[in-house]
């Protein structure tokens, strides 16, 4: 298959939904309803990034994943899961 022209690939490659599931919203609600903004502040990302993670449109870095898990006092795999082949 022909390789996509790289300037277009620069924009389109980011739209693919990553095969990673998460329970961030569920854990936020279970931990006293911590807000997206407060969680973002706690882990060093914006509220919009937390929203993107919850909606499964963005996979956080390993470091941010660990930070999120630690905020909830949970293990990484309690928060994130793999939904691919």
């Amino acid at each position, binding site marked *: 298959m022909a390789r996509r022209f790289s*300037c277009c690939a*620069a*924009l389109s490659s*980011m739209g693919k939904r990553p095969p990673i599931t998460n329970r961030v919203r569920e854990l936020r609600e279970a931990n006293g309803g911590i807000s997206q903004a407060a969680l*973002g502040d706690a882990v060093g*990302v914006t509220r*919009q*990034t937390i929203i993107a993670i919850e909606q499964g449109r963005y996979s956080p870095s390993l470091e941010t994943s660990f930070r999120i898990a630690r905020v909830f006092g949970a293990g990484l795999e309690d928060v994130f899961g793999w939904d691919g082949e």
Partner: protein
Amino acid sequence: MSFRERSAWVMALLLIGVGAFYVKLVAVDGVPPSAAAVPFVLFTIVLSVVGQIALALSSPKEAVSPADERERIVIDKAGHFASFVLATGVVVGLGQFMIRADGSAMFHTVLTCLILSQAAEYGAQIFLLRRAV
């Protein structure tokens, strides 16, 4: 809408505005490159500073926060995309000079593509921030 996206909107609209002003100076008024470039650069700098100060005053906390990991990816990808727009303009400008030997035309082509590439960069940032990456 995040601070980064609002900033990108301000810069994109500003560049479209000053770009139109530049095109008017060159294409309609027939101003030579040296005379057109100076007001264009001054307008761009002054309006950028004013726009960013106004944005920062409206969201002081977000204004001093560095870009997070998702925003850094967006900024990198948008810059990469914009580099193709600028490279295309430079190649077209050089080709134009080889054929017509018109330095003014080459200057206008390259500067126009510089404006377009910057507008494309901010447009790509808006697109990618909305798409969440």
